[in-house]
């Protein structure tokens, strides 16, 4: 018989306001095996933990039940507490009487009754707990960063700085991400390229960092400390080791009409191309959708002009498999498509552009050389209308996103300010719902746009844009002025909502990392573990976790790197001891468990058993590798003879909980 101690936490008033904690402790004290029961204000505090430790020693407890918040919150805390007091940490069970009880009920007697039942179930389970000892597994001291934007770059640089090798996988031909397309950055107005390109060079020159560009993660196996990742490096039809990046091929290629994605289709490039002058790696890539040599076998101009002999039309995709201890997701964001918002005439007029397109139209390396010109006729625009929140803060799913995209208020203020600064003859209108500028020097920046640069901020929304007679007729509301405005604009700029990159969802599935309903990666704890995924060994950097501006992204990138460094500094990791174990006497070697195991943790051995009359029988029985088993329990249900059971969540333990609840 176990000697069980029950500890009921008030959690201040979080539990105690709705659950009569004293009554719960008294009721549970009467349960069989309970030798001690008490309540305390904050069981997770130092004093609370000391109380538990003292009780374990004083009453010789062999099992502990803590009625408190969710085990996802403090299970680890209380396990450590008990371990310090000499109790096996797996002799602790938590009854969740906060998230699953006090917070969801209002009636005190009802909540108290439920808390008692939850406590009773935990007591019933702990009766059947057995001490477990965690094994260890080694750590591969190399990290993988998925995504080579500013988030991935910063994470990789920081990890490499600590001395660990890092690979960056980037799906585009160059690293740099969205920041390469941005002209100036708020609120300082320093040029994005001037601060980003030196970092890109640092990455390429760092001996610890390996850039795998034009590549995608194809398969992920293993677990924290021991991932095995297969990366598909797409054929770029150019030998990276030979190409000098001279760019001659990109000038001579006869296929000139390829939409240039770097400039968001505002101009064209060749079929063989280097995305931009500062690309890293600075290597040409052939676009197989447009190259006539690859499509029809005719042409070959680039191979002829290439002095280095780097062109290789026969190049194939390459699969690279490497081992990693930690994986950082830095897949970033995309602006949403504007096809569902054609009341703004985006599809009807080239003069209606998104904010990112405007960045290219204002960038010295962009299609207009940095002079702001109307895409339709190349003339200088005099009246510009900015529309905020296009697709952000929407209800009802299909059309837009329910969240605030966070960065639009500031970049719109920046655009408006830059345009007014460079072209004082313009009138700039910004239609906003709310101006959201929390951030250092952010509101001051927005006020400068209004006060110094004379940008017209109008609270209201644009309802319809009608292209007519070479103008964009904008119909909008001015809510504070109480009128409907009609503005003849030359350009309309849409602040499109941002969403996670499309590659994030399939990647999350491969990583078994959870996502929210908007496809942003979920953090292990929204406040206390913001750069870790709930899946051990997976870390989050940048906008893949939620909308972020550059300084926030860089800060989070550094934080993710420090978590990775912490992990890679360890030589071994403690494994989860709640693994499957077969009862060899019941096992008939049928392989049912092996077939359902997603980790390949189960193998078979031929084992001698003592038979009747001193004979020896050799039987095939299952064997679980505890370092590989993740403890899902699939095998326990698949086993036809009931031989397989899961430690910590055994059949008997769960049945005991069922019985206690239904009693």
């Amino acid at each position, binding site marked *: 018989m176990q000697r069980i101690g029950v500890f009921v936490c008030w959690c201040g008033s979080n539990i105690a306001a709705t659950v009569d904690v004293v009554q719960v402790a008294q009721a549970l004290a009467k349960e069989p095996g309970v030798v001690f029961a008490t309540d305390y204000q904050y069981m997770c505090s130092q004093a609370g933990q000391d109380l538990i430790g003292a009780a374990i020693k004083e009453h010789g407890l062999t099992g502990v039940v803590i009625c408190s918040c969710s085990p996802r919150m403090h299970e680890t805390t209380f396990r450590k507490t008990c371990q310090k007091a000499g109790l096996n940490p797996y002799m602790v069970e938590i009854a969740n009487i906060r998230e699953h009880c006090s917070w969801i009920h209002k009636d005190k007697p009802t909540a108290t009754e439920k808390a008692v039942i939850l406590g009773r179930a935990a007591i019933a389970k702990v009766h059947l707990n057995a001490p477990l000892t965690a094994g260890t597994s080694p750590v591969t001291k190399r990290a993988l960063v998925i995504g080579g934007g500013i988030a991935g770059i910063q994470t990789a640089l920081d990890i490499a700085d600590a001395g660990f090798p890092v690979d960056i996988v980037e799906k585009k031909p160059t690293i740099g991400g969205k920041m390469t397309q941005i002209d100036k950055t708020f609120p300082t107005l320093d040029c994005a390229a001037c601060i980003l390109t030196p970092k890109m060079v640092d990455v390429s020159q760092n001996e610890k960092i390996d850039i795998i560009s034009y590549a995608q993660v194809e398969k992920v196996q293993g677990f924290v400390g021991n991932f095995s990742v297969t990366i598909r490096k797409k054929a770029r039809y150019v030998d990276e080791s030979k190409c000098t990046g001279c760019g001659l091929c990109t000038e001579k290629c006869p296929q000139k009409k390829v939409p240039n994605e770097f400039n968001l289709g505002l101009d064209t490039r060749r079929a063989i191309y280097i995305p931009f002058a500062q690309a890293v790696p600075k290597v040409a890539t052939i676009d197989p959708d447009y190259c006539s040599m690859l499509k029809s076998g005719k042409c070959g101009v680039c191979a002829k002009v290439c002095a280095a002999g780097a062109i290789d039309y026969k190049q194939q995709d390459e699969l690279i498999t490497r081992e990693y201890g930690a994986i950082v997701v830095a897949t970033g964001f995309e602006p949403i498509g504007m096809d569902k918002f054609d*009341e703004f005439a985006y599809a009807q007029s080239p003069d209606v552009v998104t904010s990112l397109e405007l960045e290219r139209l204002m960038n010295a390396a962009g299609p207009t050389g940095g002079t702001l010109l109307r895409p339709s006729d190349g003339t200088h625009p005099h009246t510009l209308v900015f529309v905020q*929140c296009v697709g952000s*803060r*929407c*209800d*009802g799913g299909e*059309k*837009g996103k329910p969240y605030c995209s966070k960065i639009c208020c500031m970049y719109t203020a920046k655009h408006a300010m830059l345009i007014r600064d460079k072209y004082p003859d313009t009138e700039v209108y910004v239609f906003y*719902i709310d101006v959201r500028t929390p951030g250092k020097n952010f509101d001051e920046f927005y006020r400068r746009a209004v006060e110094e640069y004379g940008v017209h901020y109008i*609270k*209201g*929304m*644009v*309802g*319809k844009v009608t292209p007519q007679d070479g103008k964009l007729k904008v*119909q*909008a*509301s001015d*809510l504070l002025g109480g009128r*409907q405005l009609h503005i003849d604009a030359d350009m309309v700029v849409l602040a499109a909502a941002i969403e996670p990159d499309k590659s994030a969802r399939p990647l999350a599935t491969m990583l078994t990392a959870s996502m929210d309903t908007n496809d942003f990666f979920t953090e292990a704890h929204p406040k206390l573990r913001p750069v870790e995924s709930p899946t051990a060994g997976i870390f989050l950097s940048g906008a893949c976790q939620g909308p972020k501006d550059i300084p926030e992204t860089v800060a989070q990138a550094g934080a993710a790197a420090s978590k990775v460094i912490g992990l890679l500094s360890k030589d071994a990791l403690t494994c989860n001891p709640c693994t499957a174990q077969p009862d060899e006497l019941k096992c008939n070697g049928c392989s049912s468990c092996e077939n359902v195991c997603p980790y390949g943790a189960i193998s078979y051995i031929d084992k001698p058993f003592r038979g009747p009359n001193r004979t020896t029988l050799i039987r095939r029985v299952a064997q679980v590798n505890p370092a590989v088993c993740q403890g899902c329990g699939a095998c326990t249900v698949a086993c036809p003879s009931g031989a397989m059971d899961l430690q910590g969540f055994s059949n008997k333990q769960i049945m005991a909980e069922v019985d206690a609840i239904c009693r």
Partner: protein
Amino acid sequence: MSQWTDTIRQISGVDPRKCMKCGKCTATCPAYDHMEYHPHQFVDMVTTGRVEELMASKGIYTCLTCFACVERCPRSVEPAAIIEAVRLAVIRQQGGNHMTPDQIPGLLDEELPQQAITSALRKYSKGG
């Protein structure tokens, strides 16, 4: 809060509290210049219980029911449904009909489609 607020919410099946006051309905409204109150004000006045003022306004007969506000509202508020609900709250009162059958002959012209008359009568009178 006026008793009418609940009535309007019931008739329209719309929750005006979802409104984030962006004004897109009013921006998109083709009848703006002819209205006393504008779509976003309808929504706001229902939320804040000023329904009687709305019921007294001629503007409730100006809505074109073109659904532009319904389609473009980012929060699925459906201002047009709220306007119709206010109109119905008036019409359903005794003597509240905005149009009676005997007015019709005077409105007819050769080309006017039947559908226009039928719909006007149905929209503007009780049990039409």
